[in-house]
């Protein structure tokens, strides 16, 4: 079997280098790497699910260098891959530059922002503040000390956007709640620094926090670990991370990158492009995770209140302010 696989792999490689076009989708992971247990891994899971369900395969690459961004986009486009999906905001500029050269190829970028979206590009954004609002409510309800923590990865507007929704949710439950927020760093290295995540968690515990929300990619692994070790609750992000420390992770703020990737691959060449796709609570693009690992932590009352808020947000009765609206958060200073 493995030999067969190897031979097929070699044949595929030869076919590709010979320039044969075949419409496989391609997935390009950002420099953070695909097994971060969070954002990139969610994308990988979505692609794997698509491949399993339809019995197809996809091309993928983990980047090593900045110059490879355009290179990977171009090579996959030239090899006939369609659509070419990229994860992370850093791809916005390269995709914007490459897309016009390959009008027949469709490109997808998750989390990015462009002033003008080329006709063959789809930008996928998530309403992270809505999901964060819900887990903020849960955090405030679960907190006994009246202090909740937030640990962000890299200090960028996107992560403040997470934190701002979280703070609004917590304040909605308990207007007097104290919110401790820290960012891991200001460079992409902050996405993958579990040791620093652990230190920040300890610092927040010392300030009284008994629930911490990690919106920090791979750094969050250290946050969840320390929270479990120190006997407080944590909240995971992007993927469902409840299982990492069963019974000690209050919930996870789901950002369904996997669904976005799955849908993009399923639509294939018929993908809608030329604009933004925004996935919020209504589209199940964001949400909170409830499974066998955390059901003992979520009381019926908590569940009721959160689902009520969810319905109110979807119906438009409850407005969660986005950090982007005026680059500041109404309830917390980041």
């Amino acid at each position, binding site marked *: 079997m*493995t030999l067969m696989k190897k031979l097929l792999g070699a044949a*595929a490689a030869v076919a590709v280098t010979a320039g044969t076009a075949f419409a496989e989708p391609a997935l390009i992971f950002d420099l953070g790497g695909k097994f971060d247990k969070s954002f990139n891994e969610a994308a990988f899971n979505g692609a794997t699910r698509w491949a399993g369900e339809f019995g197809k395969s996809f091309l993928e690459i983990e980047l090593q260098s900045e110059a490879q961004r355009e290179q990977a986009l171009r090579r996959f486009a030239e090899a006939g891959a369609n659509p070419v999906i990229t994860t992370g905001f850093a791809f916005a500029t390269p995709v914007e530059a490459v897309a016009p050269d390959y009008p027949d190829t469709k490109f997808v970028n998750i989390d990015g922002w462009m002033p003008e979206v080329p006709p063959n590009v789809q930008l996928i954004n998530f309403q992270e503040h809505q999901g964060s609002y819900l887990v903020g409510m849960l955090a405030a309800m679960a907190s006994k000390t009246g202090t909740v923590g937030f640990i962000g990865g890299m200090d960028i*507007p996107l992560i403040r956007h997470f934190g701002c929704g979280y703070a609004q949710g917590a304040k909605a439950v308990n207007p007097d709640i104290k919110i401790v927020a820290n960012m891991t760093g200001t460079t992409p290295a902050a996405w993958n620094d579990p040791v620093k995540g652990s230190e920040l968690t300890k610092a927040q515990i010392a300030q009284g926090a008994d629930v911490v929300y990690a919106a920090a990619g791979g750094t969050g692994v250290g946050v969840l670990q320390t929270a479990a070790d120190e006997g407080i609750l944590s909240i995971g992000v992007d993927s469902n991370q409840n299982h990492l420390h069963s019974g000690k992770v209050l919930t996870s703020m789901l950002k369904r990158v996997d669904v976005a990737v799955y849908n993009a691959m399923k639509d294939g060449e018929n993908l809608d492009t030329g604009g933004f796709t925004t996935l919020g609570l209504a589209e199940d693009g964001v949400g909170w995770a409830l499974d066998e690992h955390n059901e003992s932590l979520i009381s019926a009352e908590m569940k009721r209140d959160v689902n009520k808020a969810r319905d109110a947000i979807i119906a438009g009765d409850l407005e969660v302010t986005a950090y982007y609206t005026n680059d500041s958060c109404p309830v917390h200073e980041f």
Partner: protein
Amino acid sequence: MEKMPHWADIVLIPLISLFLAAILSALVILAIGENPWAAFKLMVDGALMRSSGWGYTLYYATNFMFTGLAVAVAFHARMFNIGGEGQAMLGGLGVAYVCLFIPWPHWSLALIGASLGAAMFGALWALIPAYLQAKRGSHIVITTIMFNFIAAAVLNYFLVNVLRPPRSMDPATKTFPDATHLPSFRDMFSTAETIMFRGAPANVTFFIALAACVLVWFLIWRTKLGYEIRAFGHSESGAKYAGISPVRITVISMLISGALAGLMSVNTTMGESERLVLNSTEGAGFIGIAVALMGRSHPFGVFLAAILFGFLYQGGAELALWTNIPRELIVVIQALVILFTGALDNMVRMPLEKLFLALRKKGDA
């Protein structure tokens, strides 16, 4: 008497080192169940058999030439400049300021301006460790490597707080104006019928790197200053006795070194991304050390070694694109080459010297 002929020193040793690295890499690839021969062919096909592959190989090589020359110049004054990375980062800042805030009428003028900016910022960043070494005796290895961290933090501050356009997530500047667009190899070598170097980032900066190789050669072996640098490198006390000021040579050679490292950013920042991104240097400052070691601190050697490392980078990218070899193992392969050609020099050299001595004895007898 020399232990072995000159050609063996500069040709045979690197080749044998490379060969050993290749064997070990092949074993590593074999161990994870891939075919090393197919992988090697893929690397060669992707890096050397297509013009766009060459475009990437030469793009990386341009970076390594600048940083390799930077390390080599400092080597001649017997200083170990590990700060190429930081000097290049600051050089990038210089390029960004020159390109963003001066309205250039034509790319050629912008190129001169950006080169001066990059060289000046890089040189200034090297000046502080140089001064500390010359006047205070703080070891240059320690200070330059610490200055890499300071440079990263400085760059980070400017990108996050000063130069980032509003609403952007990426800690990067906005795209430089069109007038600063450097002609890429595609612009230069494509004819109406055939497009060469499609999409590849190699650009006119490559020729600046070539010119830098020639100038460094001229400086080190054909000028009074170069003679002083070499004399100082061979023996500080001897140089002092001959009336050469150690402070002057230390500072000047580090300024040149820093300027060369800074020039690398013209290639990455102005030539490739056309905006300053956070990790535009990507370790090229450190690769420069291996390039200088392998090139025996001679500009021509640096040129060849830079091409080799460019091939490894571009070949590695091809492996990542079309095989299941994980990127960590691609780094392992690149590291093995650095280890063998840079660090384990004596492992090959000593047996070879013995062999040549034995051969010579036989010849004499």
